[in-house]
């Protein structure tokens, strides 16, 4: 069980001077538009509850105006919530005094902004140092920490430039470094990559994942882009009109949309990018055990299962593959072990591999693709038929719910 890092309980934000009227109407089930028409109050976020675990990337996703940016700003109270609670490490953030809140932001919450929000009158390094400077860290130490952060985002050597001299992608690296320099345990990223062009965006996503692997920060990432959410998010929180409509892993949301809105949102996503090896793999019908099984035993297993090749494993770890043809020849030679005919250079993929990447692998080889976990344990196999059937099945459930 992973530890809970952020817990949001019934968070509500109404913009306007008379939130109580709007709250009352929401209680009666009025929509955002009706409430605005009647009370001139805008519902930013309504009754949002979710948790984020330590070290997790949660993507809050929705179209513009869905309240996702408001929601994330309520976490560090850049926007003051109207009702509800935010707990971070068990601390009720909504109860902090102004001074305590400033300190809390300094120590726990790094933030990265959509349009970078870099300070134009400060150099890259001075920008990165900003949070430490505010905390009153002494110049030598903050310079050192800033340089470390700049190195982490690949901006070493640029520290004396001004932001205006950098490209968009590099500016956002500065934004990232500025947040990282504080070594916060939580990073709030508000559409951090949305202002970048698609190629740079993809690079930045990869790098963020890379950084996350190394630093294991808890990240709350805001995005309107489903592909981005799927790529980055361990879990996705989907918002509409200020309310959370679904929460779950990318696959849960895609294969089992909670309602029509979610279904519409996800329908133009290329399913083969989303469906993973795990969801199309089958259990291996037969497996040869090394070193116990010799060529004859392997051959018998294949005949019985009606297959022409078989995966070989040793104490659950995948060792390789043997074909029926080779096994028959070895059996005739009288070999006792599989060593001479074992093919070790076979295609292995992880369960998270997108299905689209399986097509070329299957096209190149006449053998099934092995799906193995990080420990090289055989989790399943993918053959051409099961891949197509798996995709077709997922698309079908998609159609019937949509």
């Amino acid at each position, binding site marked *: 069980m992973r530890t809970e890092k952020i817990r949001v309980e019934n968070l509500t934000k109404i913009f306007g001077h008379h939130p109580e009227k709007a709250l009352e109407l929401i209680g009666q089930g009025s929509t955002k538009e009706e409430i605005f028409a009647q009370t001139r109050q805008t519902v930013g976020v309504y009754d949002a509850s979710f948790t984020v675990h330590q070290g997790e990337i949660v993507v809050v996703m929705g179209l513009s105006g869905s309240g996702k940016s408001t929601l994330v700003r309520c976490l*560090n109270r*850049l926007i003051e919530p109207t009702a509800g609670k935010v707990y971070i490490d068990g601390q009720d953030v909504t109860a902090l005094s102004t001074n305590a809140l*400033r*300190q*809390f*932001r*300094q120590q726990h*919450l790094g*933030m990265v*902004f959509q*349009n970078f*929000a870099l*300070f*134009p*009158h400060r150099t890259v390094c001075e920008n990165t140092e*900003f*949070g430490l*400077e*505010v*905390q009153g860290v002494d110049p030598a130490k903050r310079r050192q920490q800033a340089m470390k952060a700049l190195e982490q985002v690949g901006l070493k050597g640029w520290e004396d430039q*001004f*932001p*205006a*001299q950098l490209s968009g992608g590099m500016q956002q690296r500065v934004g990232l470094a*500025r947040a990282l320099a*504080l070594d916060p345990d939580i990073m*709030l990223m508000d559409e951090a990559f949305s202002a970048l062009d698609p190629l740079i965006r993809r690079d930045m996503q990869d790098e963020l994942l890379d950084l996350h692997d190394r630093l294991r920060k808890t990240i709350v990432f805001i995005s309107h882009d489903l592909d981005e959410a799927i790529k980055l998010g361990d879990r996705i929180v989907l918002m509409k009109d200020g309310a959370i409509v679904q929460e779950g892993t990318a696959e849960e949301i895609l294969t089992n949309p909670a309602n029509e809105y979610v279904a519409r949102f996800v329908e133009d996503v290329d399913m083969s990018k989303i469906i993973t090896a795990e969801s199309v793999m089958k259990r291996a019908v037969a497996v040869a055990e090394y070193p116990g099984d010799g060529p004859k035993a392997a051959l018998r297993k294949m005949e019985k299962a009606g297959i022409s090749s078989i995966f070989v494993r040793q104490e659950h770890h995948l060792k390789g593959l043997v074909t029926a043809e080779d096994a028959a020849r070895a059996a005739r030679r009288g070999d006792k072990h599989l060593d001479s005919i074992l093919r070790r250079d076979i295609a292995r993929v992880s369960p998270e591999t997108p299905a689209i990447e399986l097509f070329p692998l299957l096209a190149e080889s006449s053998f099934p693709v092995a799906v193995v976990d990080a420990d090289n344990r055989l989790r399943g196999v993918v053959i051409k038929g099961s891949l197509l059937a798996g995709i077709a099945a997922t698309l079908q459930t998609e159609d019937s719910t949509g």
Partner: protein
Amino acid sequence: MNAYKIPIGDAIEALIEFFVNHFSFATRAFSALTENGIRLLVDAMTFFPAWVLILVFTALAGYLSRRRGIALFTLLGLGLIWNLGLWAPTVSTLALVLIATFFAVLIGLPLGILAALSEPLNRIITPVLDFMQTMPAFVYLIPAIPFFGLGPVAAIFSTVIFSVPPAIRLTCLGIRQVPRELIEAADAFGCDRRQKLFKLQLPLAMPTIMAGINQTIMLALSMVVIAAMIGAKGLGGEVWKAIQRLQPGQGFEAGIGIVIVAIILDRIMQRVGGRPKTERV
């Protein structure tokens, strides 16, 4: 229609009389102080021969503006003024402008900052500034006399009133123009109000503030000339003398001197203020 005239003028006179009766001890003291300050500054500047000061100003202009052209213009312009025999009035005009600008900035900068941070204050100050700027400059001369007596201090007083609005306005504007998302970023990193002001808002507003100070200097120069009517000496005094004696030639000579001083001050200030740090490569 003439039966009853709304007594605005009477009211203002009563008000000024009240101030003069109750506060003139303070204004007179201030007057003595400022007068000494002006004399000291003028004495200091006239202590040196004119050509030394001209070289000093040239060097200063070159250093502040980092433009050889401006330095050259300063050298030739001031040389011309010296040649026309207008050096002494020019020095006293410069002293008046510098002192008036000093007070205007001293008042304008904090007021501008406060107006930027407080919406109610901004709403009060804006119409007052509009009023101050539309009122004909001559009018400020009149109440200055009872407070400070005829002379340079009354001139400085009316000059400060006339020239302070742009300093306030542009300071306020500069701070308000700082993008909201930068303020948000500063907040997100846990800045308090003071840090936000000094680390973010003032540095970013600086070019705008400097443009305001530039305008203040220009207005101060024009007002110092007008203030010759209430006994401010200097180039304005020369013009005023020329008007009274109907000597167009001398009037224009003094006028050219004013133009030269204006151009030098303006170019230097533009270079000092209008150079955002981000352009540095």
